[in-house]
């Protein structure tokens, strides 16, 4: 039997054109940094070009020949459909449901014999069986597709090499400014904390689905990225990375035996982080952690442990940057106490922040409760399903009010503790100050990494004081820069040259912004082939990226590398 041909795709672009598929500003939801973590006025905003991970994970683990398309245009998608695929998989989010409908109709017209499968978080919506698709992948996709295609379900699991570039958003117009490349690691899905609002927890049945089997495998995956791509910084996707004690102990042990300059960003909770001496985690590469603070009076079990302020301070003292996220619209919040939430968040000095509306996603316990209480707005546009959607009726806040307050909250953070990029720099410097005097060789290595980061980022602030939000922040940045120079050595000629170049770009961008307004970001079409199929099927105007199959993680046997 010949190999099956599978096309896995995201929904189509554009995202920036308001029409029946997009609301105004939809393209911002593609940008993790500028829409969420560094959502602030000014020019210090970051941007990333994050790939859609799930289709790659699935493609990498099928025997069939798989093409992964990310953000194609409708024409590109339609052209691809005509190439004779056996199976089409479309990954979508709730807000992209209208695009999904359109793509299914296109598939039925241009490839009527092809099986159509839908997947992604959008499948938490009800009644999708009535779309007449051939399969709905709800939850973990590798097993689903292996079963669907009749492949061996329990064969080993590979991890694709996926990267993301993080840069200043304004570098979209000035590409010479450079970026930082990070490797993406999907460590596991789902979360047993089962916070009532959490869509990912609900989506995976409130249980943990491991993907990278052991701490040793995680280390080997990092080492593989390093060997293949020279990358030593990673984002680890796992809802609460430090929750799984045996796994982490395994990783720490393996790392201690083979020290490496790896750094990783991850998601965790106060509860999980409180289990460990922080130095152990820092030695092993912890460099950034996202903590769901949620509220001053967090009602969630995951918040039990060290006092949150103490934990953030301890992290920063070790040079670990942080993301602090809070939710606006929780039951106990009022117009009077909501500003306290923003002040509390600012007091933690997180490097980046996320302030979101309370979202009652499909399948969550929160949604069930609010339905019972009659507190879901009945007339919400399905496209308006994102972090800032106003779908919950709160007795204290009128419609749309919370969204406005959230954006005020972001502005409060920016005005009171400065740009996220400055907060990162300050945290790295703080960590360097504390770690470089340590006798521990692994902490010494961390201090060298932090010093390198400080010196690389500092030129951004050397000649851009006029772009900072106010005089208080200008003074803090000036003090920080003086201290870095005093403790860490005078600015080199190269750093001063770089500072001048950045200052010039900032000034050019200021003029351009006044003339043209903000950049509108539209992602490129990305096509990746997995397997040994006919890569010549590529749409000629696009550049395919051939990724070899790599055996990186094997859940059942001792690791066979590479």
């Amino acid at each position, binding site marked *: 039997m010949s190999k099956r041909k599978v096309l896995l795709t995201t929904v189509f672009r554009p995202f920036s054109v308001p*029409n*029946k598929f997009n609301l105004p500003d939809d393209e911002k939801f593609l940008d993790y940094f500028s829409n969420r973590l560094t959502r602030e006025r000014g020019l210090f905003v970051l941007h990333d070009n994050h790939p859609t991970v799930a289709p790659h994970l699935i493609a990498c683990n099928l025997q069939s020949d798989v093409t992964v398309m990310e953000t194609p245009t*409708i024409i590109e998608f339609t052209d691809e459909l005509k190439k004779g695929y056996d199976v089409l998989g479309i990954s979508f989010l709730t807000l992209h449901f*209208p695009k999904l*409908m*359109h793509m*299914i*109709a*296109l598939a*039925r*017209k241009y490839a009527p014999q092809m099986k159509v499968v839908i997947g992604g978080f959008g499948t938490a919506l009800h*009644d999708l069986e*009535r*779309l*007449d698709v051939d399969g709905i992948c709800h939850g973990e996709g590798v097993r689903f597709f292996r079963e669907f295609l009749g492949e061996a379900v329990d064969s080993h699991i590979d991890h694709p090499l996926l990267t993301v570039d993080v840069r200043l958003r304004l570098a979209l117009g000035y590409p010479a400014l450079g970026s930082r490349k990070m490797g993406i690691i999907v460590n596991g899905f789902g979360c047993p904390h089962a916070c009532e609002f959490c869509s990912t927890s609900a989506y995976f049945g409130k249980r943990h689905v491991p993907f990278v089997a052991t701490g040793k495998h995680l280390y080997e995956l990092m080492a593989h990225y390093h060997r293949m791509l020279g990358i030593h910084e990673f984002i680890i996707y796992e809802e609460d990375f430090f929750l799984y004690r045996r796994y982490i102990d395994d990783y720490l042990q393996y790392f201690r035996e083979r020290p490496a300059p790896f750094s990783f960003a991850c998601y965790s909770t106060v509860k999980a982080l409180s289990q460990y001496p922080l130095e152990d985690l820092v030695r092993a590469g912890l460099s950034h952690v996202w903590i769901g603070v949620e509220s001053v009076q967090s009602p969630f079990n995951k918040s039990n442990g060290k006092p949150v302020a103490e934990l953030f301070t301890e992290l920063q003292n070790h040079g670990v940057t942080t993301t602090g996220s809070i939710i606006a619209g929780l039951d106990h919040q009022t117009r009077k106490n909501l500003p306290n939430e923003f002040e509390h968040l600012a007091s933690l000095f997180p490097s980046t922040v996320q302030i979101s509306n309370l979202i009652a996603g499909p399948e969550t316990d929160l949604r069930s409760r609010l339905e019972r209480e009659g507190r879901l707005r009945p007339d919400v546009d399905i496209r308006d399903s994102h972090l800032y959607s106003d779908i919950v009726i709160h007795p204290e806040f009128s419609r749309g009010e919370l969204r406005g307050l959230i954006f005020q909250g972001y502005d409060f953070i920016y005005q009171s503790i400065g740009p996220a990029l400055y907060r990162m720099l300050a945290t790295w410097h703080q960590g360097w100050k504390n770690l470089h005097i340590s006798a521990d060789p692994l902490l010494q290595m961390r201090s060298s990494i932090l010093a390198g980061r400080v010196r690389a980022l500092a030129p951004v602030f050397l000649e851009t004081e006029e772009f900072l939000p106010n005089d208080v922040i200008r003074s803090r940045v000036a003090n920080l820069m003086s201290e870095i120079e005093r403790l860490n050595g005078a600015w080199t000629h190269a750093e001063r040259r770089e500072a001048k170049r950045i200052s010039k770009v900032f000034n050019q961008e200021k003029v351009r912004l006044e003339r043209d307004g903000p950049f509108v970001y539209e992602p490129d079409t990305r096509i990746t082939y997995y397997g040994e199929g006919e890569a010549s099927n590529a749409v000629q105007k696009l550049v395919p990226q051939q990724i070899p199959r790599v055996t990186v993680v094997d859940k059942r046997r001792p690791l066979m590398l590479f």
Partner: protein
Amino acid sequence: MNSEIAPVIRNIFSRVQKLSPEDVSFDVDLFAVYGLDSLKAAKLLSHVEVEFDILLPDDDIRTLHTLNDVVALVDRIKKRSQQEGICHV
């Protein structure tokens, strides 16, 4: 009624509703008589848009009650597209 558009709409509707094309009436209320709901309506209109290579504006969609309305709207949008020389998709 446009004689090129109507049969196509009839076929799409019969597929979506799993009806024989002969059982499809153009002048009855889609929601009251055929039990069309929002999901089925979205499905129907997606197939119509793809078949005719047009996009139906949301404001116009809200005014649709019968298949005659759908045929008239498609006819109008197609003519407008041809006049403007654009493809809506």
